[in-house]
């Protein structure tokens, strides 16, 4: 009887200790999780700021200015344009074309 009790006591102590360690582990992991989540939030904020920056750089007005002033691009005169169409599309198009 006493032996059994002793054994059970030992098991109990072992269990209690393992509860303590796993709780500790859980907390450590949780801290890590929190850290990662904080990082995710930070990155989301940074993403927003970068998107903002990107769209500021990519503003139509700015792109247009650079295109026309720095690399001298311009819209072609219609007389310089050749439109290539697959034959079947062109047929239906001209059929419904000029009234």
């Amino acid at each position, binding site marked *: 009887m006493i032996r059994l009790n002793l054994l059970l006591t030992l098991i109990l102590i072992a269990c209690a200790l393992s509860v303590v360690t796993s709780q500790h582990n859980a907390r450590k992991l949780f801290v890590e999780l929190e850290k990662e989540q904080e990082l995710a939030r930070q990155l989301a904020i940074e993403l927003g700021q970068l998107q903002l920056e990107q*769209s500021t750089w990519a503003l139509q*007005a700015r792109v247009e200015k650079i295109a026309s002033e720095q690399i001298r691009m311009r819209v072609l005169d219609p007389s310089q344009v050749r*439109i290539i169409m697959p034959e079947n599309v062109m047929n239906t*198009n001209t059929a419904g074309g000029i009234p």
Partner: protein
Amino acid sequence: MRNSSKSGILPGGRSRVLAAVILLGLIGLAGRAAYLQGMHKGFLQQKGESRYSRVVEISAHRGMITDRHGEPLAISTPVESVWASPKDMEITTSQIKKLAEIIGMNSAEIQKKIEGPRRDFVYLKRHLPPEIAARVVELNMPGVFLRREFRRYYPAGELTAHMLGFTDMDDNGQEGVELAWQNDLAGKPGSRRVIRDRKKRIVEDIESIRVPRPGRDMALSIDSKIQHLAYRELKQAVEASKSKAGGIVVLDAQTGEVLALANLPVYNPNNRGNIKSERARNRALTDVFEPGSTLKPFTVAAALETGQISPDTIFQTAPGTLTIGKATIRDSHREGPLTVSQVIQKSSNVGSAKIALSLPSKTLWEILSQSGFGVSTGSGFPGEVTGRLKPHKTWRPIEQATMSYGHGISVSLIQLARAYTLFAAEGELKPVSLLKLDAPATGERVISRATALAVSRMLEMVVRPGGTATRAQISGYRVAGKTGTAHKVEGNGYAKDRYISTFVGYAPASSPRLIIAVMLDEPSAGQYFGGVVAAPVFSKVMDGALRIMSVPHDVPSNNIVSFPAARELGGDV
């Protein structure tokens, strides 16, 4: 042995006393325990918990607004606000000076804020960039804290200002889309209870008190490229014609989505301080004007629908005036007998008045009402106006005559643009949408397909030689449209030399993709006819927009090469 043991036994009285004392002590302890456990349990548990558990706020940011291709138009990003709790503040004047320097205020202002009526919470400076906030933290002053807030940025600035509106200091929508969809866009901050350890790290989640709900992202129907184009051209035209104001609306002819919408004058939404209500108004939606001749096609459509006239029916417009009762209607150019088509092409007031007077007032009223005049477009934009269309029973003959060419009725620019879906979508009125649609909305049939096509052919004549808007032409595309030049209403009558010039049109006429309505308010650089000041804006924006959307040409201008021919060309090279 026995003796000594006997002498060791305590006298019976003493042992009983001792036992009683110990027992009493135990009872006392048990009583105290029961008292604490039973009656003070809640209080004590709360005290204990407060040593380690904390309620943490979880912020939720406001949703992003993008254009139809996902380009961001409004983004919220966190900023720091410095606040103080005057009760807990213990700072010296030199420290205040330092603080003032960092946050860019003068120390007297700060002094005043802190010393005002005793409060627990005073904002010192709101919306600081994170770098500056970090320097405030470095000062390490008791009673001065940071608070994370969100500030809204509009990368496109004034380009999309009227469409988007703006938010206030607390990131709540105040105008435009920001206000209309406030509930969707705004996030709901949440909170949770956590356990913190000695180093202030969160080690365990106990419960979530409120689940945070981040704001929903929204895609508008706006196409930023077309928006830029429309804004740029409108701005140039307003400056060149010295107009007081102007507006432009670009609609997708098939779906009714608003691809671009711009007004002048405008403001910069990133600079909240100087937004005047005068500039904040989205005129295309919230202001009405008399549309003038742009309404004539509806008169003609009503007449064609009755079957009493055809596009070739002739009306005598000479001598260019028509007297009804005491009033006289005038044409700007004298013409002779005109067909219905020519009435539209030359924009004859007398002709359209005669057509209108041949109809019962109810027929005309019905078509105008079904075309969306006098009713809200249902866009959901805050402050949208319905315009005014008088009930037909109250019309006098002169009113019916002037209504036929757009006087005595008031409409908003977006209503006008939308009404033209009638001719662009073969007789159906499409609902307008400020949000990107996944599936095209179904329209409502107002006039028959045949009538719509007949009017559309007349509208094409307007931009051909002999019409009022040859400047609306675009090479490579068939264009249909109508000019309008209306005297401004002033008090009870019309201003003699102040006009509203409009042009509404669509292209390619063979299968319309875009409807553009342009309005210039009081052009005062000499020219004021819609065909001269507004039509070129239409033509430039339409040309660019069709190119952006790569819409195939519908007028072969000898530059279309068939596929095999192109291969041969390639072979030569």
